[in-house]
C-alpha cells in the first residue's frame, strides 16, 4: 500500500472474493505472456518519503539561477512580471485545481463562468468578438491559427514575418509541412515587416505585435496589404501592450493569438502558461478548442455551458477543426484574475510605466560606448540593441555581476550576430536599469581591452 492508495490486505481479500478470482495477478490474464515485463522497472528507485522528495526537488531548484537570484532583463516571449498573491490563493483552491474539463455543466458553473469572463477580457484586449477558452501556448497558437486559415482561405502559402517569434515560425513550419503548404518569410526592414508582392496564392499573412525585436508594427497597413491579396491576417500579440496599442480588431486582423504567460502566470521554465485565440464572427465556427457560452436552465436561471461543440474532436472526429482537448484552463483563470486585479485603469498605468522605463532604458543603454539601437521604431517593454563586442561574452561578464542583460539574438538572427534583446518589466526599477548600464559598460570595455590585447599579441 502506497500513501496514495488505501486497499488494506483485508480489503484486497474481500475485493478479490467479490470478483471471484484468487489473486490480483489473475486480473491481468488477458495480457499475453510474451509481452509481460518479467522484472521490476529499473532506475526508478524504491519510492521516497514526502520529506525526502521535497528535499530532492528543493536541491534541484537550487541548482537553477532563477529571476530570484539575479537581476534579469530576459524576455523574448516570457516575462518576469509580478504575480499578485491573490492568484495563488484562488487557483490553488481544490475546486479550480482538481476538476476535469467541465463536461457536466450543472456542477461546473464556476469554471464555465470563469471561462466566459476570460473570453470577454481577451475580446476586450484584442478587439475581436470571439475568443476561445485557451489553447496550449503562444507558438502553437500561431500554428492553430494557420490551420484555420488553411481551411478558410484559398492559397497554398503562408507568409510569415521575420518579426514573428522564432519558435512560432518554426512551429508553423513543423505543421505546414504536413499540410503540404509552403512557409515564406517576409523580411524586416528598419525593424518592421515589409510585405512585398504577395501574389494571389497566399492563405494567410502572419505578423507579430510588437514584433520579436520589440518594434510596434503598423498593423492596419499590414492587414490592408494582406487583405488586398485575398489572404487572412493573423497577428500574434503580446497581451499587455494591447492595453495601449490600437486593437488588432480595429486594424482588420482576422485572428489574434498570443502567449498569455505575462498575464498572471509564472515563468515555470517555459510552461505551463496559456495561449489565447480570438477571431472575427465569420470564423466563429472554425475556432479550435473549448468555448463557454451563456444560456439558461430549465427553471430559467442563468448558466454557462461549453458551446459550439460540433467543431470539436469528441463530436466531429476526423472533421474536427482541431484535435485539441485538454488546454490550459487553470492558467487562463490566472489570466482573467490578473486582468481583473489590474482593472481598466490599472492595466493602462502598468503598461505606461513599462513604456516610460523602457524609453529610459533605451536612452540610458545607448549612451554606453559600444552600444547602439538595432532599430529606432517605437517600442513598449522590449527593445533590441547592437553591441560592438561579442554578445555572449558580454552576457557572461554581466552575469558575474549578478545581471542577466537579456537575450542574445545571434542564434535566431545571424544578421544581428551581436544583437541583444532587453525586456523591462515593472519589476525592473530605474536603479536596476542604471546598474545594467554600468555593468554593460564595464563588460564591453573589458571585451574591447581583451580584443585589443589579443590583437597586440598577434601583431
Amino acid at each position, binding site marked *: 500500500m502506497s500513501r496514495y492508495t488505501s486497499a488494506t490486505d483485508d480489503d484486497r481479500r474481500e475485493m478479490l472474493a467479490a470478483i471471484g478470482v484468487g489473486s490480483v495477478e489473475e486480473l491481468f490474464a488477458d495480457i499475453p505472456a510474451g509481452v509481460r515485463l518479467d522484472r521490476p522497472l529499473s532506475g526508478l528507485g524504491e519510492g521516497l518519503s514526502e520529506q525526502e522528495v521535497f528535499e530532492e526537488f528543493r536541491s534541484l531548484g537550487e541548482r537553477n539561477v532563477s529571476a530570484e537570484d539575479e537581476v534579469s532583463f530576459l524576455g523574448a516571449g516570457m516575462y518576469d512580471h509580478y504575480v*499578485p498573491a491573490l492568484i495563488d490563493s484562488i487557483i490553488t483552491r481544490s475546486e479550480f485545481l482538481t476538476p476535469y474539463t467541465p463536461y457536466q455543466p450543472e456542477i461546473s458553473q464556476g469554471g464555465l463562468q470563469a471561462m466566459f*469572463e476570460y473570453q470577454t477580457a481577451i475580446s476586450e484586449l484584442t478587439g475581436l468578438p470571439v475568443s476561445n477558452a485557451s489553447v496550449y501556448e503562444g507558438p502553437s497558437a500561431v500554428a492553430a491559427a494557420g490551420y484555420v486559415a488553411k481551411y478558410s482561405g484559398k492559397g497554398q502559402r503562408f507568409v510569415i514575418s521575420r518579426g514573428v517569434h522564432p519558435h512560432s515560425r518554426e512551429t508553423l513550419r513543423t505543421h505546414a509541412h504536413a499540410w503540404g503548404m509552403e512557409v515564406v518569410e517576409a523580411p524586416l526592414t528598419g525593424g518592421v515587416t515589409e510585405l512585398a508582392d504577395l501574389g494571389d496564392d497566399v492563405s494567410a499573412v502572419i505578423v507579430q505585435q510588437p514584433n520579436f525585436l520589440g518594434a510596434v508594427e503598423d498593423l492596419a497597413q499590414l492587414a490592408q496589404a494582406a487583405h488586398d491579396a485575398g489572404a487572412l491576417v493573423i497577428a500574434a500579440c503580446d497581451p499587455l501592450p494591447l492595453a495601449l496599442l490600437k486593437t488588432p480588431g*480595429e486594424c482588420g486582423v482576422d485572428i489574434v493569438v498570443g502567449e498569455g504567460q505575462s498575464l498572471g502566470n509564472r515563468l515555470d*521554465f517555459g510552461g*505551463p502558461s496559456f495561449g489565447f485565440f480570438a477571431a472575427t464572427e465569420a470564423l466563429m465556427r472554425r475556432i479550435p478548442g473549448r468555448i463557454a457560452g451563456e444560456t439558461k436552465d430549465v427553471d430559467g436561471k442563468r448558466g454557462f455551458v461549453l458551446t459550439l461543440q460540433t467543431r470539436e474532436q469528441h463530436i466531429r472526429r476526423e472533421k474536427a477543426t482541431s484535435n485539441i482537448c485538454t488546454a490550459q484552463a487553470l492558467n487562463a483563470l490566472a489570466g482573467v484574475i490578473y486582468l481583473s486585479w489590474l482593472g481598466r485603469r490599472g492595466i493602462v498605468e502598468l503598461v505606461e510605466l513599462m513604456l516610460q522605463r523602457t524609453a529610459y532604458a533605451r536612452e540610458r543603454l545607448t549612451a554606453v560606448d559600444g552600444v547602439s539601437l538595432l532599430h529606432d521604431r517605437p517600442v513598449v517593454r522590449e527593445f533590441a540593441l547592437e553591441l560592438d563586442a561579442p554578445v555572449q561574452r558580454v552576457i557572461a561578464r554581466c552575469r558575474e555581476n549578478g545581471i542577466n542583460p537579456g537575450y542574445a539574438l545571434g542564434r535566431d538572427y545571424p544578421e544581428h550576430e551581436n544583437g541583444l534583446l532587453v525586456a523591462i518589466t515593472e519589476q525592473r526599477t530605474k536603479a536596476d536599469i542604471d546598474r545594467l548600464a554600468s555593468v554593460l559598460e564595464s563588460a564591453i570595455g573589458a571585451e574591447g581591452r581583451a580584443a585589443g590585447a589579443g590583437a597586440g599579441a598577434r601583431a
Partner: protein
Amino acid sequence: MIREADDTLTIYERSKPGRRAFVRPELDVPERPLDELLAPELRREEPPRLPEVAEPEIVRHYNRLSKRNFDLDTGFYPLGSCTMKHNPKLHERIAALPGHARMHPLQDPSQAQGALELMWRLQEALGEIAGLPHVSLQPSAGSQGELAGVLLTRAYHEDRGEHRTKVLTPDTAHGTNPATVTMGGYEVVKVVSDAHGNVDLDDLRAKADEDVACLMLTNPSTLGLFETGIEEIERIVHGVGATLYYDGANLNAIMGICRPGDMGFDIVHFNLHKSFTQPHGGGGPGAGPVAVSERIEPFLPRPQVVRRETGEGNGSRDPFYDLDHNRPKSIGRLRGFQGNYGVFVRSYAYIRSLGAPGLREASETAVLNANYLLAKLREHGVAERLPAAYDRLCMHEFVLSGEPMRRELGIKTLDLAKRLLDHGVHPPTVYFPLIVEEALMVEPTETETKETLDRFAEVVAEILREARDDPSVAQNAPHTTPVRRLDEAAAARRPVVRQAM
C-alpha cells in the same frame, strides 16, 4: 424587500468606475509625453473594458465561483479515460519553489542545470516505463503528443522515400485520434472491433496495405479491455511497413506490468495529467511527452534535453545537461521553449515518491478497483439493466451499456448521469465509446477506497430502483445542483460567448 445575493453576476457586473485593486509602483524615471513614445495613430482610443473591482470583491467573486464547481478533492470522479486519481499536495509546494517557478525558459543551460537534470531524469523514467529508449517532453498535452506521433511517422516514411496516405484507427478510438490524423495530413481509415471488443484482425488485415503509414491504438482500449491479439496486430502493422502508435490515455492500467515498447509499439504518448497526477485544472494544463524507438529517434522535436558526459568538451567532472538544437532530421518544434516544465516537476515527484514498486502497485490497485466495482454493480443487480458491454475481466476501467435501462425503465444514460449529481458523485464518461449503445465508461482509479466504490454501486442501484417507481425523477435530474439542466441547443444556436458591455 431584501435583494437576493446573485451568484451568477459576472466580475464585469460587479464593476464600478473608480474601484481598483492594483496600485502602480512608483514612476522612478523622468516622464516623457506619451505622444512622443507612441504616436496617437498607433494607440487605441479607449482602454479595454476590464472590470473595476477592489481586491476583497475579486477574492470573494472567485471563491464563490469555486463553490459552484465539483472537484476531485471533494468527491468521487470516475470519469472514464480521464484517470482522475488523487493530486498529491506536495507537488504544488515544490512546483512553487522559486528555483523552479521563477526560472526563465531562455536561461543559459549552464544556469539551468537543476531544471535540465530533472527533465533528463524524467525522460529516462518515462522511457523505462514505456519500454522505449528516447523521450521528448515537449508536447503540451495528449492531443499534441498524438500529433507529434503522426508527424514523426510522416518524417520516418519520408526519410525512406515513401509517401503513404492513410492512418488506421479502431472504431473505439478517442476523437482526438481521427482529428489528429486529419491535422497530420493523412486520411483516416476505421478498423472495426470484433465480438469480444478487440480489434477485428481480419478487418485489420484487409485494410493494412502499403499506403498505411500507421496504426494508432489505445491498449487497454477505451472499452477498458486489453487487446489480446496485440502480438498479431504488431505483425500485421509492421508487416506492411507502417508504424505502431500507442495512445497513452490508458497507461494507468499497466505501469510496471507490461510495456508498449515490448509490445512492438514505435511511438507512445503519455498524459502526465492522467497517469502522473498533474491536476486537471478544469481543462488543463497537461503535458503529452512521447517515447520512441531507435528508428524514430532522429526525428524527435527540437530541442532535445541531453546529458553530456565528462570529456564531451564540458570541462567539468560532472555531467552537463544541455539543450540539443542540432538535430537535422527533427520534425522541428511543436511549441515554444521546452514544454510544460511545471508539469514535469509534479510528475517526476510522483515517480520519485512511488518508485518502481509503487507505480506497479498503483496499476494493480486501479485494475483491482475497477473489477471490484464491476462485480459490486453485478451483486446489486445493476447488470440486468446496465450490463457490461463485453463480459470479460476489465483493466482499469469498464464500459456499461444503458440500452436495457433505457428500454425497460425509460431513463437514458444521460438521465442516470444527471441523477448521480444529486448524490454527490461525478458521473462516468457517457456516450463513449461510440460502438456501445448508451455507453457509460467508469474509471475509479487506484486512489479510491473500497467504501467509496461500495457507495457508488449502492447509489447506482438506488437510482435504478427509483426509476422503476418513477422515471421522471432521473429524467428531470439534477435537482440539487446550483443550476439544473441547461439549454445547450439555444447556446449553440445564438452563441453568447462574451459579456455584453
